[in-house]
């Protein structure tokens, strides 16, 4: 049987602007939350997924498998590793072996703000190992010149809008001022949230005489040669782990947090449904007599429920679309400073679709029960309402 005209549902939206605003706002908040949560999870996963290469092997201190920051290995390790690991990539006679320090330090921005930043001390060979790290502005930092390079997400946490603005900017680490000489992009990996400093400078700043790790780029994904090296040099107390495996283990470590984010989003969405139910029921309950009239005219309950759902979905869609637009505009790419480093919220089409679908779902579920409840009343009773 034919249903009620779409015009009826559309015009009903204007009957109570305050209710429309309430429904649209509720739906918008749920959509924004789902998109925010999705963007967070997506961003974190993307950062971890794109950070590790299968051809890179990390040498870290035994017992520090879970965190490079805690690892301390001798300064001689890179030289020994370059000579001992059989299949290290070599570029024009330079081995792709990168001695590194990973440390989180408090830094002061140009505006006087203080923030914790992940700082990686590197030598030029780092760019032979981390092939996806490229300068999108400026140049590499020079040692002894108080220069640093910053990832393109890190510069946002430092308050810069874009790479060109960041180059020439200054940060202070432990009362020493460093100039940002360049901005690095790395396919969305964790490097984009880091500040890279010449290794020798960071050794001074952090007052340490050990490395955190050595990263070597291999000709293949086979790490058996590296493992043989660490087994033969027990005095170095090294552990070899594929870089991709290291970040995969980090991803597994953060899985409970992802689950918590999803659970929170679901709980808030359910709260939104309950709130929406009240608003929608109030809206429908005030039209019980009209619903009875439509039934008297011959409209089936199904046709009326469909129309009420369409009305609710339209209201939810208005809020959802506005929220989705605001999320893309305000949240996409926003740098999140997390324990694993900085990563950007990644709102892609999948996250948008899930967010909008949850808003529309809220519209359907939020309308279904109130509509059925209003229609449960016998027609003669409904006609006496109000």
């Amino acid at each position, binding site marked *: 049987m034919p249903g009620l005209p779409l015009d009826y549902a559309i*015009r*009903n939206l204007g009957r109570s602007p305050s209710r429309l605003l309430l429904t649209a706002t509720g739906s918008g908040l749920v959509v924004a939350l789902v998109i925010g949560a999705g963007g967070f999870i997506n961003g974190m996963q993307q950062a971890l997924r794109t950070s590790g290469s299968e051809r890179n092997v990390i040498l870290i201190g035994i017992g520090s498998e879970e965190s490079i920051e805690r690892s301390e290995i001798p300064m001689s390790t890179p030289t020994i590793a370059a000579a001992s690991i059989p299949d290290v990539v070599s570029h024009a006679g330079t081995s792709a072996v990168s001695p590194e320090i990973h440390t989180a330090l408090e830094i002061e921005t140009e505006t006087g703000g203080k923030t914790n930043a992940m700082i990686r001390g590197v030598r030029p060979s780092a760019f032979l190992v981390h092939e996806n790290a490229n300068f999108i502005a400026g140049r590499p930092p020079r040692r002894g010149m108080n220069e640093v390079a910053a990832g393109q997400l890190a510069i946002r946490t430092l308050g810069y809008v874009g790479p060109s603005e960041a180059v020439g900017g200054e940060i202070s680490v432990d009362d020493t001022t460093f100039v940002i000489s360049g901005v690095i992009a790395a396919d969305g990996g964790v490097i984009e949230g880091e500040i890279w400093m010449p290794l020798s400078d960071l050794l001074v700043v952090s007052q340490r005489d050990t490395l955190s790790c050595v990263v070597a780029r291999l000709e293949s994904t086979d790490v058996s040669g590296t493992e043989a090296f660490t087994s033969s040099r027990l005095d170095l107390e090294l552990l070899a782990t594929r870089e991709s495996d290291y970040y995969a283990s980090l991803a597994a470590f953060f899985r409970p947090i992802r689950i918590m984010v999803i659970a929170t989003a679901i709980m808030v969405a359910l709260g939104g449904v309950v709130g929406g139910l009240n608003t929608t029921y109030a809206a429908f309950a005030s039209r019980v007599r009209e619903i009875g009239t439509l039934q008297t*005219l011959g409209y089936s*309950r199904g046709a009326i429920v469909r129309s009420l759902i369409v009305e609710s979905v339209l209201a939810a869609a208005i809020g959802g679309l506005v929220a989705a637009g605001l999320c893309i505009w305000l949240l996409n790419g926003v740098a999140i400073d997390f324990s694993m480093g900085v990563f950007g919220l990644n709102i892609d089409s999948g996250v948008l679709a899930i967010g909008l679908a949850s808003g529309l779902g809220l519209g359907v579920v939020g309308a279904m029960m109130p509509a059925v409840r209003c229609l449960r009343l016998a027609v*003669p009773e409904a006609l006496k309402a109000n």
Partner: protein
Amino acid sequence: MSLIECRQLTRTYRRGDQEITPLRDLDLDIEAGTFLALMGPSGSGKTTLLNLLAGIDRPTSGSLVVDGREIHHLSRGALAAWRASAVGYIFQLYNLVPVLTAYENVELPLLLHRISRKERHRRVAAALDLVGIADRSDHLPRQLSGGQEQRVAIARAIVTDPTLILADEPTGDLDRESAVSIMDLMARLNRDLGRTIVMVTHDPKTTEWCDSVLHLEKGRLAEAEGEATTPMASESNLESEDVR
């Protein structure tokens, strides 16, 4: 054969532990083309009878046949479809959809039928013209007076060319002048177009336009007055007394 045949028609409600029977073992025949008034005190069962005739309520027992169709046997969906084609209902409070214009309100029942947009337009225009409200077709209900709203409601009731027009105190919420005008219109529908009308009313004056009056009391037929007392009642009949 009568247009409407009620046999042992009974309607019982349950309200908590209490059982209420507003209509009890009613036997009634209504001929096609009749303009019938149902009268009686509150709780006498007249609105219950009207609701049963409209197919918006179901008898607890007994049978109800309208135009040869045993509507007491119809499923809820079939009953809705039957109402859409066979019944035009006029409410005391007009019950127009506030967000739709007069034209759209009248068009609403036609959307349930598979007819072209052009044919719908023709029928709506004809119905609005018949009730004398064509010049207000694009007005929303709130932009109309009570009398005008009731005219739109009558146009909505007749636009599908139903077998039966039912009216629940159609002048109950109107001033005297509007009430006379509405009763004139309904009488014209009955007289000129041969529509069968069953009207619930509390007001004896409005029965002057009817050709039969049934009095109900405690769910039973109390008395029946044969032919309409004043089928062609004019405005002057009501001028001396309030309709309400």
